C-alpha cells in the first residue's frame, strides 16, 4: 500500500522536493556571508546588499506559498481524484481495508509535506538567524521574527501548516468528490486560516506583556494623522524599548487610564510636517527642542502611552503552541476524514 501511494505520488513529490532543495542550496550558499556580517558589525542592516533583502523576502514568500501549494496539489486530489476516476473501486477491493488505504495515503503525504516544509523552514530559519539579534520590531529595516509575516515563515509552525493543509485538502476532497472544487475550497480555507490565526488567535497563545510609558523622543516611533480626514486627531506610536517585540496595541491613555486621542493642542505644538497635505503614514520627527517641550507638556497633563505586546522571548513558546494547535486541528480533521471515508463514501 505504501508502494502504491508512493508510485502515485512520486512525480509531485519530486517536483516539490526539487524546489525545496534548490532553495535550500541557495540559502546555504548565501547564509555564511550573512553570519560573517553579523559577527563583524553591530549594525547588520547597513551592510546588507539588495540581493540579501530580496532573498529575505523570497524566503517569506516561499514559506507562505509552500503549505498552500502542498494542500491544494497534494491534499485535495488525494481522495478526490480516485473518486472522480472511479479507481477507488479498484483500490478498495484489493485485500486492504479502506481505513488502511486512507491511513497510508494520508500518512505518507502528510509526512512528505512535513519533510519538505521542514527542510525549507530549517533553511530559512538558519539563514535569517544572524538578522534576528539585530532587529527591532519597528526600527529594523526587515520585519523581526515575531511579527506576523516573519513568524509564520520560521521555526516549527510551517510544518504544522503543511500537515494541516494536506489533511484539510484530503478531507475536502473526500466530501466534495471532485478534484477541482476541492482544490479551490482548500485554497480558500488555507488562506483564510493563515490570515485568521495571526489576526485573532496567535496573540492569545502565550501571556502578553504590558507597559505604560511616558513620552520622550527615544521611545517615539511615529506620529500620524487619523484616517477621518483633515482635522482628525493625531495618533502617536511608541516602541517597547526592546528588540523584536510584537506590539499588539499601542494606545494613548489619559490620566485616568482611559484610551484617548492626543489633545487638540498637540498638533499645533508640533513643528510642521515635511509634506503638508499628506494624510497618511508616519511623519518624520524633527525639531528636537520643540518636540521635547510638547512631550513634557503631554507627560505633565497625565497622558501616557499604553503598550500591549508579545515579548521577543515568547517566540519559541508561541511557535510550539501554534504548532500544537495546528496539529490538534489536523488530528480532528483526519478523524472526520476517516469516519467519512469509512461510512459515507461508496
Amino acid at each position, binding site marked *: *500500500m505504501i*508502494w*502504491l501511494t508512493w*508510485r*502515485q505520488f512520486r512525480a509531485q513529490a519530486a517536483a516539490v522536493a526539487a524546489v525545496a532543495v534548490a532553495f535550500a542550496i541557495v540559502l546555504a550558499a548565501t547564509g555564511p556571508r550573512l553570519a560573517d556580517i553579523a559577527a563583524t558589525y553591530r549594525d547588520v542592516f547597513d551592510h546588507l546588499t539588495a540581493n540579501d533583502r530580496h532573498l529575505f523576502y523570497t524566503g517569506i514568500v516561499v514559506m507562505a506559498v509552500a503549505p498552500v501549494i502542498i494542500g491544494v496539489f497534494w491534499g485535495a486530489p488525494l481522495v478526490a481524484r480516485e473518486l472522480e*476516476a*472511479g*479507481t477507488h*473501486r*479498484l483500490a*478498495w*477491493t*484489493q*485485500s*486492504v*481495508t*479502506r481505513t*488502511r488505504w486512507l491511513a497510508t495515503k494520508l500518512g505518507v503525504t502528510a509526512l512528505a509535506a512535513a519533510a519538505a516544509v521542514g527542510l525549507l523552514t530549517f533553511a530559512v530559519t538558519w539563514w535569517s538567524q544572524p538578522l534576528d539579534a539585530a532587529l527591532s520590531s519597528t526600527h529594523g529595516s526587515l520585519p523581526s521574527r515575531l511579527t506576523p509575516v516573519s513568524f509564520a515563515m520560521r521555526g516549527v509552525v510551517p510544518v504544522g501548516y503543511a500537515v494541516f493543509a494536506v489533511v484539510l485538502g484530503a478531507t475536502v476532497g473526500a466530501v466534495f468528490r471532485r478534484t477541482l472544487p476541492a482544490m479551490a475550497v482548500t485554497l480558500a480555507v488555507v488562506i483564510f486560516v493563515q490570515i485568521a490565526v495571526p489576526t485573532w488567535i496567535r496573540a492569545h497563545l502565550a501571556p502578553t506583556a504590558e507597559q505604560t510609558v511616558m513620552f520622550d523622543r527615544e521611545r517615539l516611533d511615529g506620529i500620524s494623522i487619523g484616517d477621518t480626514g483633515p482635522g482628525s486627531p493625531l495618533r502617536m506610536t511608541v516602541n517597547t524599548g526592546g528588540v523584536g517585540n510584537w506590539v499588539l496595541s499601542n494606545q494613548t491613555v489619559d490620566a485616568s487610564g482611559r484610551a484617548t486621542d492626543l489633545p487638540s493642542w498637540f498638533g499645533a505644538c508640533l513643528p510642521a510636517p515635511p509634506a503638508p497635505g499628506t494624510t497618511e503614514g508616519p511623519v518624520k520627527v524633527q525639531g528636537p527642542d520643540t518636540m521635547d517641550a510638547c512631550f513634557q507638556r503631554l507627560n505633565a497633563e497625565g497622558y501616557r502611552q499604553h503598550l500591549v505586546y508579545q515579548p521577543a522571548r515568547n517566540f519559541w513558546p508561541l511557535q510550539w503552541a501554534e504548532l500544537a494547535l495546528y496539529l490538534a486541528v489536523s488530528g480532528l480533521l483526519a478523524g472526520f476524514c476517516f469516519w467519512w471515508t469509512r*461510512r459515507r463514501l*461508496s
Partner: protein
Amino acid sequence: MTAVLRAEGLGKRYRRRWALSDCTLKIPAGHVTGLVGPNGAGKTTLLSLAVGLLAPTAGTIEVCGGRPAADAAQLAKVGFVAQDTPTYPGLSIADHLRLGARTNPRWDDAVARSRVERLGLDPAQKAGRLSGGQRAQLALTLGLAKRPELLILDEPVASLDPLARREFLQVLMEAVAEHEVSVLLSSHVVSDLERVCDHLVVLVDSQVRVEGDVESLLESHLRLTGPRREPATLPAGQHVVSASHTDRQSTLVVRTDAPVLDPSWTVGRLGLEDLVLAYMEGTRAVAPGPVMEVLR
C-alpha cells in the same frame, strides 16, 4: 448447497430513492452465475453491496461467509472487476500487477504474468493507453490473480466490441475452469451470459423474478401457442410467466415441471434470451417498467 452470497431483505437507499429494496437472494458456490436485468434494476447496487463498496441501508448481505469488506481477510476472498474496469491511467501494466502483488496475500504472480503474456500486452505500457478491451483484460487479470473464492464482475463487457467481448468471456471461462472460482457476472445482454453461465438470476425492479440452473430453467419453461384463451384456465402446476394475445391466438410462456398434455397448444422450447424477456414482459404487464435491451 453452500451459498457464496446470501442476501436477506437487502435494501440500499440514495437520499430519497431506493436503488435496491427488499432483495432476498442466495447464490450457490461453484457456479458461474449470471445476474441479468434491465438497466436500473439494481444490479450494480447489489454487486457493490456484495464487495462492500456500499453499506446496506436495510437487511443483511453475507458473502463467502462474512460481511463484505469487514476486514482484509474478507476482502481477500472476493475479487471485483468494476463497471468500466477502472485502472490507474498513469501506471503501467507491470505497476498494476505489482499493486496486486503488494495488496493481496494470495496473489498468484505466475498467473498474472502468463496471462499478460498470453494477451500479448507489453508490461511497460501505461494503462491509460490501453484499448477498452485490453483494459478490461487487465482488470480481469487483477481479479483472477488475486485468487478469490468469488469473482464478481459488473457489466465487464458492456463497453466492448463484439470481438473483444467474445475474447473476454472466453478468457474468463478458461480461468474459471482452471482456478475453480465461483463467478457472479452481471449484464443486461443475455446473449453474453448464455455463453458462460450455468446459473441465472433475473433481477427486475430489485426483485428476484427467477433464479436457477440454466439447464433446468430451459427445460421447465415452455412457449404455448394456440387458440385464444385466458391464462387463468390453465391447469395447476403451469405458472404463466408472460402472456400475449391477438384476436384469435394466445402465446403464453409457462413454467411447469410436468409435460403439457393439452392438444390445443403448440408447445415450443425457449432460448435463454426469450426466457429472460418473458420475465421482464411479465413484469411490464403488471406495471410498465424499463425495457430490456437486446443486443446481439
